[in-house]
């Protein structure tokens, strides 16, 4: 029998399989290396990187909610320079694609980040985070306005030859408008969704569970919303779509691919079981085998209506 074909092309980013670890849930890879060979993954999206190191928000930063969690980390990160010097060499040891997730407070900061990362050896793609709900400036502000989203995308596009993925926020009325805007501004792919803004209150002391008051909802609870949005965006744009949101099992991942995602990212599930990504990959292979599908690409966007 022919070997299974699992490789996918995400707008010029070639992955050996469609399973990517999602930004902010996989650190810089180090924490997961004790559990499995990171080279088994299609790709790893780094924690969101900013020009300068960021401290992040005060604690408490997380709270569990039914079938999910809220987080307001506030993009704590080591900054792009220390990332390149201290974290990237470790990641580069593995046979996997490194996707640098970037975050800025102004379009110019995104531009600079793209320039710096393009010079670093070992980055395979840039994922623009215009969708973080947990920071005051930038982030979701750019993601909610089609013109600003396009401006950030165009600025990054002009600075780099690497594939540019734009990560979209679900906290908008019509996600396809933003997707179309970044497509025309030169994005090679879109990834969605980032977290849904939410809130949780401790009724005993009537305080919010998070110091930031609101936070981003992730995990199985968001999956149906994410899936619907991936399906909508898949029909709206021509560029490839990466599906994200509540994926914890191979079945979840397959739903996203059938809805139109060429690849998927696994976030919160990494916290539930550090080897989730591997189990998801194995489950996908198993499914393809069982259905005698030789090439995973046959599955993408194959939703029957």
């Amino acid at each position, binding site marked *: 029998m022919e070997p299974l074909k699992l490789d996918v092309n995400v707008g010029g980013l070639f992955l050996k399989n469609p399973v990517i670890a999602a930004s*902010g849930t996989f650190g810089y890879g180090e*924490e997961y290396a*004790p559990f499995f060979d990171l080279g088994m993954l299609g790709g790893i999206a780094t924690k969101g990187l900013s020009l300068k190191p960021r401290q992040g928000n005060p*604690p*408490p*930063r997380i709270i*569990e909610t039914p*079938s999910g969690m809220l987080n307001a980390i506030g993009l704590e990160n080591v900054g792009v320079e220390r990332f390149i010097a201290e974290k990237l060499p470790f990641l580069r040891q593995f046979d996997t694609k490194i996707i640098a997730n970037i975050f800025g407070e102004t379009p110019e900061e995104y531009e600079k980040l793209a320039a710096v990362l393009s010079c670093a050896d070992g980055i395979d793609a840039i994922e623009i985070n215009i969708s973080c709900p947990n920071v005051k400036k930038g982030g979701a502000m750019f993601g909610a306005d089609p013109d600003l989203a396009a401006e950030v995308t165009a600025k990054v596009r002009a600075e780099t030859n690497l594939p540019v993925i734009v990560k979209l926020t679900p906290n908008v009325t019509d996600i396809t408008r933003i997707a179309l805007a970044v497509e025309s501004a030169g994005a090679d792919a879109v990834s969605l969704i980032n977290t849904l803004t939410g809130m949780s209150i401790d009724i005993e002391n009537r305080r919010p569970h998070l110091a930031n008051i609101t936070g981003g909802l992730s995990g199985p609870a968001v999956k149906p919303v994410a899936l619907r949005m991936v399906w909508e965006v898949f029909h709206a744009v021509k560029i490839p779509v990466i599906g994200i949101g509540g994926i914890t099992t191979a079945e979840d991942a397959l739903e996203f691919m059938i809805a139109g995602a060429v690849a998927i990212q696994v976030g919160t599930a990494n*916290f*539930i079981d550090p080897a989730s990504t591997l189990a998801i990959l194995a489950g996908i292979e198993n499914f393809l085998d069982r259905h005698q599908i030789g090439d995973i690409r046959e599955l993408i966007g194959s939703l029957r209506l």
Partner: protein
Amino acid sequence: MTERTDNLFSDAGFIRHNRQIAPGHFLLSISIPLAFPVPKPGQFCMLHLPGNEAMILSRPFSVHGFQKKKKEAVLEILYRVSGRGTQFLSNLTPGAEIRVLGPLGRGFWRLAGKRILLVAGGIGLAPLAFFLEREIEYGNHSTAFSIYLGAKNAEILEGLASRIPAGNQKLLPATDDGSIGYRGPITDILKKDLEHLATKETMILACGPTAMLKSLAELVTQKAVFCEVSLEERMACGIGACLGCVVETRNQNGSSTYKRVCKEGPVFDIREIVWSR
């Protein structure tokens, strides 16, 4: 490059028993494969709540006991029911499968000293009893141990005290209602005792509610005693990846940094912590 710890385990264990030792307090014994690395006192594990779709995050618990047997290892957790997850845990019966991730974090530093005071607020006894058990096992006879144990009432205090390994340490009890021992916060007795102890030869290891740790922080700063505390913060991953569990710590230059309780802790030098809440 940050340090890599390759000796981590994430796999299924089986519940041997899960028995109540006092109202709302349970001793959970889990059989796990021998491959589980030997934990250091102060380290913790993440327990996954099996067959549960709503509570997705694992719960952190200090290692309370660990023994290697011929074909398996036994991990003991001492816990208090304080919410839905621990309630769920208390209903699990022998034979149930439970995934364990660990051992995690940095344990207590074992400094040579003439006198070690273990200060436990309620369930905070869990890691301290394990620490003491290891000291007794290693045959540490040159150190005098005292346990300051605070609890709500006599019933809970006695249940917890039954988990202290046999040895010639001193037990100093305090309860909120005075039903046994001193009536009031455990730090009151400690404060008195510290008046006449040579602080240079004394060290304190503590674990308990924030209010207790805060008064302890004041006490040891006045007295200049070395003191390590095991902290609690909500966790998602337990391995340092999510940055969810941070506490504010003091730098030498007066500025502050967030440190991860799961990775840089859960045990910290008490002087490092900025107590804001």
